[in-house]
């Protein structure tokens, strides 16, 4: 069977190629490599399985979470334990990034942020900018409500689908 190092090498080569599927069979050992949305997922099927999983040098693609009907239970509980945090954890919508890029809270370093915690927003309110390759994407709230939490810092690199703000709908 293939050595871990060899599988690693294969992953790297496939990642850089246009191949999306790769299967290698020898002595009853089958290795299948599949590239999914820019991510290399490796499955090593053998009788004596050795887990091989590697993500190579690509941007992890997270599932886009557009809305969250209800806040997760554990978040609520965890925060409830902290006496300081009260309303700020009460949210029912997350504004997520539509692309990989840099998060900017204001139109330029000299300007005030588009929004702060406690601000009311409606569908067309611009809440921030995400920039990638000099394309500046003005992110709109797409919901009417109040900003209850800002999840990223100015200048931070954000991933596709990463939540940026929490909103309590009105």
């Amino acid at each position, binding site marked *: 069977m293939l050595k871990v190092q060899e599988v690693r090498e294969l992953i790297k080569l496939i990642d850089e190629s246009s191949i999306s599927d790769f299967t290698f069979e020898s002595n009853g050992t089958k290795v299948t490599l599949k590239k999914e949305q820019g991510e290399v997922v490796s499955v090593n099927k053998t009788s004596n399985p050795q887990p091989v999983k590697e993500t190579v*040098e690509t941007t992890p693609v997270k599932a886009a979470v*557009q809305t969250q009907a209800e806040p997760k239970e554990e978040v609520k509980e965890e925060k409830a334990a902290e006496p300081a945090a009260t309303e700020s954890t009460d949210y029912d919508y997350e504004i997520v990034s*539509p692309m990989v*890029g840099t998060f900017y809270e204001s139109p330029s370093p000299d300007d005030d942020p588009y929004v702060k915690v406690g601000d009311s927003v409606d569908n067309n309110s611009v809440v921030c900018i995400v*920039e990638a390759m000099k394309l500046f*994407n003005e992110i709109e709230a797409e919901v009417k409500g109040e900003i209850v939490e800002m999840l990223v810092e100015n200048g931070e*690199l954000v991933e596709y689908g990463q939540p940026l703000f929490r909103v309590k709908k009105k």
Partner: protein
Amino acid sequence: MNNLKKEGYVIEAVTNKGYRIIKAPDDLSASTVQWDLHTNWLGQHLVFKETVKSTQLVGHELARENADHGTVIVAREQTEGRGRMSRYWDSKDGLGLWFSSIFRPEYLEPKRASQLTLVAAVAIADYLSKRDLDVKIKWPNDIFINGKKLAGILTEMQAEQDAVQYIVLGIGMNVNHQHDDLHETVQHKATSIYLETNEIQNLNQVLTEILKELENKYEIFMGVGFPVIKEMWEAYAYKIGEWIQVKTKDIWDAKVVGIHDDGALKVIDHLGKQHHLYSAEILWKGEEIE
């Protein structure tokens, strides 16, 4: 000098400085642009303004009022021309071109839209290269000639999670600037077509030809996708194989390898590890650290 005046130039003498062209004969005019424009859709709806704060601002306003795909806003002068992060872009009447195009791409995911900035850079580079200028593109989309900046692109988008509402792509290009027309803070690092060719340009002609290139490259991008554009882009790549500095959280040295399939800048660090950069301050003055 007198010949220039005969040709229609209005020239002013500035004490101790030299001469300044006040008016070129072939000024930007809506009718001339429309007459010369041989595109199918880009700029066929042309909004011509004498003076605006910024063509980008007008572009956003019009797009919000449902302006058509392909609408182009041109101004003779911008009083608050903007570059990246609202950095000031000097845009005096008669000297350069500043225009914004509205795109409403169908079937373009927002996360792929940033490739359009590279598409526009290739369009401008092709135009300049046809004029025998040695043009380079500094990732992702600054246009350089002989190591000096000639044009910049500012692209802004309104998008939902899965659909682009509109994109306003602004191009600012130094055309007829003489040395003294460039702000003294940028004189050593900016240039114009005039400074590179010694020929005063007809702004209408430059604009119509760039729009034609831009329409063509946009159609290639939407029709066959990014790979073809990537190849064209790489032929113009600035500082390929050279060491630069990248500022993310820290500043680190990186060697430019090319661009990734999605347009990200591909670099390797000193350990040979590859990185894809989507958004980073890049300090291109690699020479200084070598």
